[in-house]
């Protein structure tokens, strides 16, 4: 990988181990809320699966739902989407307030930038930590799905990969947002209510996108979650998910591009915020 550095103060050699030290620091902080974060990671899927999968699912399956879902049971239909949405939730949660506060309130990032660790290493370390949190949550989610018999076949574990990719693609852009915000002013609230929640509802998580009026279907197409859902559902259900192979490739490319651009913009944002 070529490191194209635009900021003069970091132009010198990379400091080996910088990114890793940042991840280590964040993991050390995670230990403080490890119990609550793990119990949430297991508790939330239990509740969702009981209520939506078994409760609502029983109604859907008895009604006309089965046909619209391509003959798949409702629990099996939503399980991959629930996992992906949970991954997104963790990724967004970690990269919004907690990461922003390291710029603004605790100023921890400023403290790190006084060491040989460069701002882009701080950005990378922060995102890798988010990824670690997301993977942990997604694996636990997968295990709960397994217990409910809704974890799909042998390719099912790939849901963890697609979910992590979706979550990190979004998280990278939120980190970029953190780096340019000088006052929070309710921005994250708007993000949660008017971006994340609608995205969760209209991304083919609970019902197929073709049920959305044609004029509004673009909402799903631009939603990272839709791309993640299609990948996860195919991982779990295979051909029964009804996603053509070419489209799978497109989904993967879109999510990788989201992540790649997000990382580039976030690194640049961290540079500008911390070295000025």
């Amino acid at each position: 990988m070529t490191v194209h550095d635009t900021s003069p103060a970091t132009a010198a050699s990379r400091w080996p181990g910088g990114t890793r030290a940042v991840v280590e620091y964040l993991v050390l902080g995670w230990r403080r809320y490890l119990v609550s974060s793990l119990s949430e990671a297991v508790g939330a899927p239990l509740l969702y699966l009981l209520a939506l999968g078994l409760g609502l699912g029983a109604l859907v399956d008895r009604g006309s739902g089965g046909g619209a879902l391509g003959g798949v049971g409702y629990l099996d239909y939503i399980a991959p989407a629930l996992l992906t949405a949970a991954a997104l939730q963790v990724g967004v949660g970690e990269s919004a307030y907690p990461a922003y506060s390291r710029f603004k309130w605790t100023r921890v990032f400023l403290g790190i930038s006084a060491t040989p660790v460069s701002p882009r290493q701080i950005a990378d370390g922060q995102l890798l930590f988010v990824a670690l949190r997301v993977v942990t949550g997604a694996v636990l989610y997968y295990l709960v799905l397994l217990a409910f018999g809704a974890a799909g076949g042998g390719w099912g574990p790939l849901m963890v990969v697609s979910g992590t990719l979706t979550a990190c693609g979004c998280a990278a852009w939120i980190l970029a947002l953190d780096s340019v915000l000088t006052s929070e002013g309710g921005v994250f609230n708007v993000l949660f209510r008017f971006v994340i929640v609608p995205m969760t509802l209209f991304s083919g998580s609970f019902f197929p996108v073709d049920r959305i009026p044609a004029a509004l279907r673009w909402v799903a197409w631009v939603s990272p979650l839709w791309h993640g859902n299609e990948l996860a559902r195919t991982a779990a259900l295979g051909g029964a998910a009804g996603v053509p192979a070419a489209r799978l490739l497109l989904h993967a490319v879109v999510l990788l591009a989201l992540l790649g651009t997000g990382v580039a913009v976030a690194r640049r944002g961290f540079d500008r915020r911390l070295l000025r």
Partner: protein
Amino acid sequence: MGRPGDRPSVITARGLRKSFEVKGGATVEAVRGIDLEVPAGQAFGFLGPNGAGKSSTMRMIACVSPRTSGELRILGRDPAVDGVAIRARLGVVPQQDNLDEELSVRENLFVYGRYFGLPRARCWQRADELLEFAQLTEKSGAKVENLSGGMKRRLTIARSLMNEPEVLLLDEPTTGLDPQARHVLWDRLFRLKQQGVTLILTTHYMDEAEQLCDRLVVMDGGVLVAEGSPAELIAGYSTREVLELRFVPGEQTAAEPLVAGLVERVETLPDRLLLYTPDGDRTLAEVTERGVRPVSALVRRSTLEDVFLHLTGRSLVD
């Protein structure tokens, strides 16, 4: 280079400038062309009021703020090229603490050592040594959010020493602390100085500058207005003694013409007249002879505060 007794320069600056673009397209010139030369082992201070440009200068020296123009060499290297390598050899105490309040005191030190690439075992060991040095051993396991302001400041200083820096940058190390906490801190800094660490500090307290600095610059409005040891500055810009005459606020102006001509220089403050004189007691006798009746009178030695007042016409602390 290398001659015995020839101490290499730790910081060299020529025409160093820093401006910030602010909202609305305006430019703030925080530092407007300063020259610096700090030899290794010296305790060097920037004395100046808020907004003088001290922090902006310190951030350029710390290699976290690219200079706008001019020359700058830290430890013989250019921050724009070798920022990473220079930062590895510096210790930084920023104006505002940026500790992790959620971690314990000891963990904060450990984590910081890791940023410098120290092995884990070495980080824990060094953390314990520095807790001792900062007199925080009893607080080792406490969460940072439960520390007093003075303790947090000491922890920040301990943290800045994790990499055994050659140069320690301290931006207003004791601002906001009570007198006792300040004295504890000064004592620690004095020890570091004795160990040969180069100290670069900013302050708007003249007593701090007098206590700690071998040499200092007076900074105001982004430029340096004077330079020297505390004693040189006082000798150069003030008299040996100062006679302070206190009045009911407002009445000092009536006394002003009466004392005129008695001494070289008189400063008028809201409730006081300051008469700069080589011999305060004699001047007091002369003032009394002329019929001036202040509420109280005090003869004291000149301080850096007087130097600043002379140079800028303003007080250091507003």
